[in-house]
């Protein structure tokens, strides 16, 4: 037992059982724990009480349009891939009240709506998802205007990251250069080994969270073994996605026949945009009481696959599925670069897994490339 705390950027080793202590420390520091847990046949992100809620003994299998949970004999806390949820569920909630107004004596006045932003500790953040948070930062707090609701949540998060010990067939972080190793933006980064965690300390808060755990400085041997875990995962990633000719390829092929072709398969269900960790489009709903003396404005996730998304008086700009799929893909892989200086895709593969008809964006881009008029 070491009484002092490790310094920032140190790497330490803790026994697996110490994870519970780390989570307790975070609770004691006032964080609400959010982490992976089994729900409705999938590993979702929800509030958790402690290690007992983590999906120990479960893993998953993913294919385009397919997700299955499987029991595993490996006693691993993080031995699974990404589920349908991403952390945007907490930083940019799918439904959130923005404003509330009431009419008194003929005057409208705003009522306070914002409760103090929750302080979240995100448990088990993968590298690609961490990059996705960085991308949403650029969208919501990186420009001239700042979304105060996002900012207040984002500012306070504790990131307990995990280096992936397993990749799914839909993962392509290596192509997008977003993983699988966590490189920045974390408070603690774990690598799960059979009997211990190798832990990189990323911040003062991270160091504090190791308080009262039996940590020991990691040896070169520990670090080597941890690095091997990530290298193994890196090598196991089969899916390749060529990005060097983007965004030009898509801009130059806005009338490509492939858009028509994918539109015959796409259901316009918007699953892909909901599971995407960077998709940020929202709409604002207005509601009121019957006497119109009180009204509320609520922000709700929207999707460019929804017909009404492009509504202007007298019609919709993108009435066809072809044009809506094109909007999504060209935004994600082309115009996002112009707008925010980064791709909108982190290669997490969720849109491939959760597309009910298994549309794979990497294949769509490849089809455009192969059939592109020279």
């Amino acid at each position, binding site marked *: 037992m070491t009484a002092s705390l490790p310094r920032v950027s140190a790497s330490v080793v803790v026994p697996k059982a110490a994870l519970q202590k780390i989570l307790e420390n975070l609770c004691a520091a006032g964080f609400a724990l959010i982490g992976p847990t089994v729900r409705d046949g999938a590993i979702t992100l929800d509030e958790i009480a402690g290690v007992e809620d983590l999906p120990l003994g479960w893993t998953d299998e993913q294919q385009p349009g397919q997700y299955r949970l499987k029991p595993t004999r490996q006693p691993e806390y993080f031995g699974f891939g990404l589920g349908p949820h991403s952390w945007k569920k907490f930083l940019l909630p799918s439904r959130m009240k*923005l404003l509330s*107004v009431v*009419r008194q004596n003929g005057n*409208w006045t*705003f009522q306070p709506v914002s409760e103090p932003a929750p302080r979240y500790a995100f448990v088990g953040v993968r590298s690609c998802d*961490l*990059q996705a*948070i*960085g*991308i949403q*930062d*650029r*969208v*919501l*707090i990186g*420009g*001239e*205007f*700042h*979304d*105060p609701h996002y*900012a*207040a949540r*984002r*500012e306070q998060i504790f990131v307990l990251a995990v280096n992936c010990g397993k990749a799914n067939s839909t993962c392509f972080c290596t192509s*997008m*250069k*977003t993983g699988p190793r966590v490189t*920045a*933006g974390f408070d603690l980064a774990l690598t799960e080994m059979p009997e211990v965690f190798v832990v990189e300390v990323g911040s003062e808060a991270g160091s504090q969270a190791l308080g009262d755990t039996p940590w020991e400085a990691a040896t070169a041997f520990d670090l080597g073994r941890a690095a091997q875990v990530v290298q193994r995962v890196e090598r196991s990633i089969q899916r390749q996605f060529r*990005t060097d000719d983007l965004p030009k390829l898509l*801009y130059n092929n*806005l*009338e490509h026949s492939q858009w028509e072709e994918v539109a015959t398969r796409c259901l316009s269900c918007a699953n892909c945009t909901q599971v995407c960790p960077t998709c*940020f*489009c*929202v*709409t*604002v709903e*207005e509601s*009121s009481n019957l006497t*119109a003396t009180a*009204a509320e404005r609520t922000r709700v996730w*929207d999707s460019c696959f929804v017909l009404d*998304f*492009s509504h*202007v008086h007298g019609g919709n*700009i*993108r*009435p*066809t599925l072809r*044009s809506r799929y094109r*909007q999504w893909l060209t*935004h994600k892989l*082309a*115009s996002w670069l*112009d*707008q925010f200086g*980064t*791709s909108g895709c982190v290669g997490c593969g969720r849109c491939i897994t959760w597309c009910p008809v298994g549309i794979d964006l990497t294949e769509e881009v490849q089809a455009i490339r192969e059939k592109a008029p020279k």
Partner: protein
Amino acid sequence: MSVALPVPEIHAGLDPMRPDWAVIQAIKPEAYGIQTFTMRFSDPKLAASFRFQPGQFNMLYLPAFGEVAISLSSDPGEPQVMGHTIRSAGNVTRAFNRLKVGDVAGVRGPYGSWWPVEKVESKNLVIVAGGIGLAPLRPVILAVMRERKAYGRVVLLYGARTPADLLYTDEFEKWQQGDIEVHTTVDLGDEHWRGQVGVVPQLFYRIRVDSKQTLVMTCGPEIMMRFVIYEALARRIPKEAIYISMERNMKCAVGFCGHCQYGPTFICKQGPVLNFASIEPFFGKEDF
């Protein structure tokens, strides 16, 4: 392509989605289903500090109905009074057009880019508008009139569906006296109409342009702007000298909602006024 993860810088308390209240001071019927509202912020400090450029817009909010993007149509030289010319198009705009003097609405803005009036300098200016599209161009006319001598020839080509749909007709005389040429057309005349009948781009045939010395600013239905650009290019006006104001669904005006994207452009941020050369690859693409 890994992105840096800096600790966000928080502007505490500033909510860009929260409007301020403004009182309607006057309402002027302009055309069928279209009225101009003159508004002023209730907070005198805010009213005094408000400034805008020709072509910019505000988000107007009516509790229980919703929020819409509406251009400032008044004189930027007198920014304390904000003019908004609103056409009944749907739920929110219809509710607006039922308001009375003294009623209150939420206002936030101004947002977006503006017509490059400063680039006109001593050059000529051709303003081409269709229907409600004259609203965001009226501030250009009023700004030009303030310093008429600083500009060359200034022409307004304006059309609407019928004579009853033409905006600001009571001001045309004053504009003409201020040395602004006004040419109008309608798609469909009535028994009193003695002017031209036909689409707006045809008005180009009424004027001569000096291709090297002319800027074009246009706002109206996209199909109209397409032919305006066609006519302008046919007269060898460079792409870079053509400015258009685009419209897309808009829920926030601050770049968060994603609705107003037009290729790489957010109409609320880099637009609504855009240089044609910058959007040429996308302009006119089907369902884009």
